[in-house]
């Protein structure tokens, strides 16, 4: 058995347990090829609202997903009943589905054994969190907020788990990982001010609850009674979270097949794509690297392919798109093996430097309800939230009402004025750990705000 620290209370399956489950599941298989994916996790959370813990949860689950292939026919089934009867039922269901399925001309054979780098996304500090230590962290926010006459709300989650993949060709991959996140919104009791702060990391010890509470509190206080400004094009200083909110949509649009088929921003006329073309300011480089401890991800993808560092955009030029195994062999390229994280380079300026250099503009803390409007340009709409301010003559002068924008991160990165120091951000709207993202604060000209909102 894998040695586990005595302090670690979270349950997850060890490498040996995963191997044993995979072996049993594969022994029930009669398909030409079978792949077994095992995920086990302990998901723990504590919610707080109106300065008290409102709910919490500790849930343990392990799921086995079976993929069966007869020639070019395939099917899958999953179960969380891991005794022989449960595993056998899942294998039989998967095989039954596969036999009934028409042939898939795009089916790919299973991979043989692969070599994987060890994952770097595990933390004992995260795995050791229990309800009492979560409550202690939460009180570092609720107690000062209550003492200050403010209202704090928020969410803390810790996930401890393991993922494994095995197939009949001898491939076996295993990685254990952790994730943690803490976000808080502090509001004034009269509802005229609201501030947000959040952080995520696989290592809980990197998250400072008291500091997040203090930042959200300061924003709540300074954002009261916002003034209305005319919607229109503004120079905007985006805090790193707001940059993360938008830049992740570029990463989601990197699918090579959609580009080659003319269904994406990354399409070029004549069935071509934009690899080699400059699409954003030459100061911008976007990469992903699952072995970078700041944006750590899984060492393998769900088909067992090892992941690696990928340069998507370098000095403004598209370097790679995301090729799955089928599309890669179809167009004569190597499959990408992207790890899912995002790192955008930056500069040396602080957020304060960006503000100081702005004659007239807006400071945006984060965005909300982001929804695609036009895939052709990665155009999104959404609203600012929890800390939007007017900058005049290099200083924050007053809070402004929230604004709706209609704009694209591609346009944003073309209208770049300056970049600050990159940092890890919590950029998922739901407050889950989400994709690992490191981005800088940015100063951008001509960002397109289309209407005002009365929402605080």
């Amino acid at each position, binding site marked *: 058995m894998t040695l586990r620290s005595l302090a670690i209370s979270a349950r997850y399956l060890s490498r040996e347990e995963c191997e044993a489950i995979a072996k049993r599941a594969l022994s029930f298989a009669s398909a030409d090829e079978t792949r077994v994916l095992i995920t086990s996790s302990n998901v723990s959370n504590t919610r707080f*609202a*109106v*300065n*008290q*813990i*409102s*709910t*919490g*949860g*500790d*849930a*343990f*689950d392990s799921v086995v997903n079976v993929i069966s292939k007869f020639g070019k026919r*395939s099917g*899958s*089934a*999953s*179960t*969380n*009943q891991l005794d022989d009867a449960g595993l056998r*039922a899942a294998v039989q*269901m998967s095989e039954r*589905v596969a036999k*009934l399925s*028409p042939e*898939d*001309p795009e089916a790919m054979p299973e991979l043989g054994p692969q070599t994987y780098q060890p994952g770097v996304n595990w933390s004992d500090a995260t795995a050791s969190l*229990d*309800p*009492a230590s979560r409550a202690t962290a939460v009180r570092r926010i609720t107690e000062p907020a*209550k003492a200050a006459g403010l209202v704090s*709300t928020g*969410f803390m989650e810790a996930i401890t788990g393991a993922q494994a993949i095995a197939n009949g060709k001898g491939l076996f991959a295993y990685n254990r990982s952790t994730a943690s996140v803490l*976000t808080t*919104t502090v*509001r004034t009791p009269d*509802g005229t001010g*609201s501030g947000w702060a959040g952080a995520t990391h696989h290592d809980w010890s990197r998250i400072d609850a008291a500091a997040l509470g203090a930042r959200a509190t300061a924003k709540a206080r300074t954002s009261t009674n916002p003034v209305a400004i005319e919607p229109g094009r503004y120079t905007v200083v985006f805090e790193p979270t707001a940059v993360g909110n938008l830049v992740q949509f570029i990463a989601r649009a990197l699918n090579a097949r959609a580009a080659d*088929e*003319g*269904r994406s921003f990354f399409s070029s*006329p004549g069935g071509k794509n934009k690899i080699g073309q400059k699409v954003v300011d030459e100061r911008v480089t976007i990469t992903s690297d699952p072995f970078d401890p700041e944006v750590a991800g899984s060492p393998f993808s769900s088909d067992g392919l090892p992941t690696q560092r990928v340069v998507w955009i370098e000095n403004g030029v598209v370097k790679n798109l995301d090729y799955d195994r089928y599309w890669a062999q179809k167009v004569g390229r190597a499959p990408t093996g992207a790890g899912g994280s995002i790192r955008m380079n930056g500069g040396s300026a602080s957020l304060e430097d960006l503000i100081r250099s702005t004659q007239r503009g807006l400071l945006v803390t984060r965005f909300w*309800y982001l*929804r695609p*409007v036009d895939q*052709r*340009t990665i155009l999104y*709409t959404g*609203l600012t*939230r929890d800390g939007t301010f007017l900058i005049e003559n290099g200083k924050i002068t007053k809070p402004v009402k*929230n604004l709706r924008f*209609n704009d694209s991160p591609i346009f944003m990165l073309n209208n770049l004025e300056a970049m600050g120091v990159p940092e890890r951000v919590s950029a998922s*709207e*739901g*407050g889950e750990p989400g994709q690992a993202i490191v981005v800088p604060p940015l100063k951008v000209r001509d960002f397109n705000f289309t*209407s005002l*909102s*009365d*929402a*605080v």
Partner: protein
Amino acid sequence: MAGLAGSFLTGRNAADSLVSPLNPYAAPIAAEPNIKELAAVALDAAKSAGADYADVRFVRNRNQNVSTREQRVAGIADNETYGFGVRTLVNGSWGFAASRDLTREEVSRVAKQAVAQARANRSALVRPVVLAPAPVVANGVWKSPIEIEPFDVAIEDKVGLLLAANKAALAVKGARFVSSSMFFLREEKTFASTDGSFTFQVIYRTEPSMTVTATGNGDFATRQSVDVAPRGLGYEHVRDARLVENASRWADEAVQKLSAKSVDVGRYDLVLHPSHLWLTIHESVAHPTELDRAMGYEANYAGTSFVAPPEKVLGTLKYGSELMNIRGDRTQQGSLSACGWDDEGVQPEDFDIVKRGTFVDYHTTREQALWLDWYYKKRGIPTRSHGCSYAQTWAAVQFQRMPNVSLLPGDKDLGWDDLIAATDRGIAIIGDGSFSIDQQRYNAQFGGQVFYEIKGGKITGMLKDVAYQMRTPEFWGSLDMIGGAKSYHLGGAFGDAKGQPVQVNAVSHGAPVTRFRNVNVINTGRSA
């Protein structure tokens, strides 16, 4: 009130003893644990550990997704998950723990874990939780009113239907890509509480869908089959969706969108089809009338509400025009929210949310109903939960989720054509599209699937790049024509997100055809 089903509780009845439902699984499944016995273990363990109240949910959830693109199968997946969650109340503080391991030892351990967590959570307690009374349901059984068990239909038939629909779409000149899918869910849910309630429900959900993409002149346009909404029905809903017959129309419309006129920005009268308006109701009426939002409990993610504080808006806030009557229910036949009892054992009731344009009530759970005790006393009605407790899975704690929230039809027998004919300069919108709304539900922007220009009471052509921006009370205040019961249609979605960690709720919203005056329309088209 035709269209809006009054009551469809025929599936709900009391049973002396619980019978195991018919096993729909062709393949053998794991041995059935004795749920009633395990429920007793959970509740006893929680009580012994000091819980003042506890409930337990055992949920077996099976879903199947069949997806295709063009003339091939993109994926077939059949998933099952089974587990339980125990919720405990200790001195006014909640705790919750869950596990997939259905053994007596694990059930007992998890119940104690939930009590220990409630004690830890108590360290930050300000206002203790108190539950409104609810009648005990000793042995309740309810099942979605399905005609055809979706898991009994052969996968070949499902694939065959989707590929035939794809073929029909691709036969339209200009249609280049098509994807289609079917999703089915069957959920067996057992609930037991220390109050003595014990219920068993089998809930179904079905969604057929298709997306057609047309390309031409270096551009592309898509048409999604959103006018076929997901429902709480069986395979008969796929049959009735007539995918093959509809596919060529959706493809035609995708092709037409390529050459449609880009809209001129400005103010227009909007004639909205219920396949579009359901989403506007969801965002601008259903969400802001959730009581937890109004009380600040969702401030960190879903947001708060402009319909707050309760003491200043209940019975007084003017939400919209006199034609606006909004009702919450979990009883419309085939709706996604329909059930016999909610996830804390309460039989849901139909209730008014907006009456003749005035806001009159929020959605509630047992914990929340008492927050409005003063209001219900003032109205002379009992303080009880409306039955809005829901959890996405066995692994997630239940909390307040919206029921079906629907706009009631008007008294006059008006239809789509009547509203178009009465409109001089407007835009007709069918199907939901892009959507976004602020965290207090004031400022929203909605796109659609298909847009038509209306001039002089007639449709003169198709438009594209249309989205309208609105401020909720002004928008609903501009509702000046409403269709009759015959124009009523039930839309809805699986993806209603709220809570942290985010839980997804499935909900239906019904509406007749409607007209809104003088709404701000923007053009969303830009070139890269």
